[in-house]
């Protein structure tokens, strides 16, 4: 290993260990999507008419439909949580330690992102495992194909979190982020309803969903879970990941951004 990969490995390992050691965080990360699975599946089942759309080849039940969206939601929350821990200052010290090490800043921030992705992978696979125990199973290859999809969507959502942490000045504003970023991103996506269902409600709603990067993360995961490839979603998520990451880099530029405000 060279100096760069040694750093990457250590940063990822540290984050994963911190997550596994924190039982409360682990449990809540697991319980949240499960609760949603049960509640939404019970509450919305009637609302979703039946229709066969790719990647599905048969009629599916609502709880099968929302599993990919909940996987993406886990990653969305995870990205926001790591950005919250930066805003809260819990992780600011370790960020300082990270940024003063003699590697390019983009690499250090990328390592930080990958660490968040690793943690989100642990959560998503645990969730998929429990869902399987509850009878919601994917094709076996789907569990393999979904890995690269999750890495990419995790990078995009993590980079969004990093971007937010670099622009938010105070904690109070974080509630605003929840209201104006996370919830709209989640609800105005294909996580809970397919696009055709949205179109029935409103054209505008459908169009918003179609340009929401989160929608494409959900679809990338959905197709991968059925061992299928969705190039359009891949393009969107890849572009989103790069764009958010570049903007986050600007935010962490020592000449401006976060560090100037937080000493």
């Amino acid at each position, binding site marked *: 290993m060279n100096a760069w990969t040694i750093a990457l490995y*250590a940063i990822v390992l540290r984050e994963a260990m911190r997550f596994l050691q924190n039982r409360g965080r682990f449990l809540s990360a697991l319980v949240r999507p499960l609760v949603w699975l049960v509640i939404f599946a019970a509450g919305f089942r009637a609302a979703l008419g039946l229709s066969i759309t790719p990647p599905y080849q048969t009629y599916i039940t609502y709880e099968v439909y929302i599993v990919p969206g909940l996987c993406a939601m886990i990653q969305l929350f995870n990205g926001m949580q790591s950005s919250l821990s930066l805003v809260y200052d819990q992780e600011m010290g370790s960020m300082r*330690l*990270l*940024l003063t090490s003699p590697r390019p800043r983009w690499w250090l921030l990328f390592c930080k992102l990958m660490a968040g992705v690793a943690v989100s992978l642990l959560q998503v696979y645990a969730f998929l495992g429990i869902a399987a125990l509850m009878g919601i199973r994917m094709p076996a290859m789907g569990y393999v194909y979904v890995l690269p999809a999750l890495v990419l969507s995790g990078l995009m959502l993590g980079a969004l979190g990093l971007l937010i942490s670099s622009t938010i000045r105070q904690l109070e504003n974080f509630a605003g982020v929840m209201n104006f970023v996370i919830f709209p991103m989640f609800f105005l996506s294909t996580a809970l309803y397919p696009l055709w269902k949205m179109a029935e409600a409103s054209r505008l709603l459908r169009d918003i969903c179609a340009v929401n990067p989160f929608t494409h993360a959900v679809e990338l995961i959905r197709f991968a879970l059925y061992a299928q490839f969705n190039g359009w979603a891949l393009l969107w998520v890849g572009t989103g990941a790069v764009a958010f990451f570049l903007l986050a880099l600007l935010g962490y530029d*020592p000449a401006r951004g976060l560090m100037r405000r937080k000493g």
Partner: protein
Amino acid sequence: MTRTTALCVSNVSLSYGAKRALDDVSFALDRGRFCALLGPNGAGKSTLFSLLTRLLVTREGRIEVAGFDLARNPRAALARIGVVFQQPTLDLDTSVMRNMRYFAALHGMAGRDATARIDAALERLNMRERADEKVRALNGGHRRRMEIARALIHAPEVLLLDEPTVGLDTAARRSITAHVHDLAAEGLTVLWATHLVDEIEPSDDVVVLNRGRVLKQASAAEIAGEGDLIDAFIEMTGGNDEAAA
């Protein structure tokens, strides 16, 4: 600049919005010297540390570490700096060793090489027998010593410490102050930010910082003159702790 200059700060200024936190700061540190950056709260000490570690950058002025320009060659400069920040940066629920290993990895070191360096660094701070303890179980003084040891793993030429004794009891303060003076005696260049005069020995260099300006750089003995360092310091700064407006 001569070869023996380990840290050189020239004409550095920085503003937070309208507030001038550092105003045309210049000073130089010779290799192997213990230099106290003495200033009341709000003088700009931590701001200067952020600039020295490139958490902040400014267009006004120049910083050189061991001959490397921080703006032009940041990685070479950073590799020669060890830093202990004002706020502790520790993972409390893991062992001292794990904390040390993590830091070594950030600097690209792993395996046996890292272990040897960590052992040596802990040994220098008399912390070796605590390597396997959880950081949470350590008292404040030992935690700080661990942070100092950690800052030495990559064998830096310049050690920066920002108010390292804040919150420690008298015995721990004494011990840490003595330890770091020893490090300087062994050849390390030390910049020690403080507002506490009693941490400074007569032979130390002192840079007096007040309201973002350097008022004086001289040896502690020189600044004290006939009287006490503390009187000279209070007279220079007008006794205004919380100089911040």
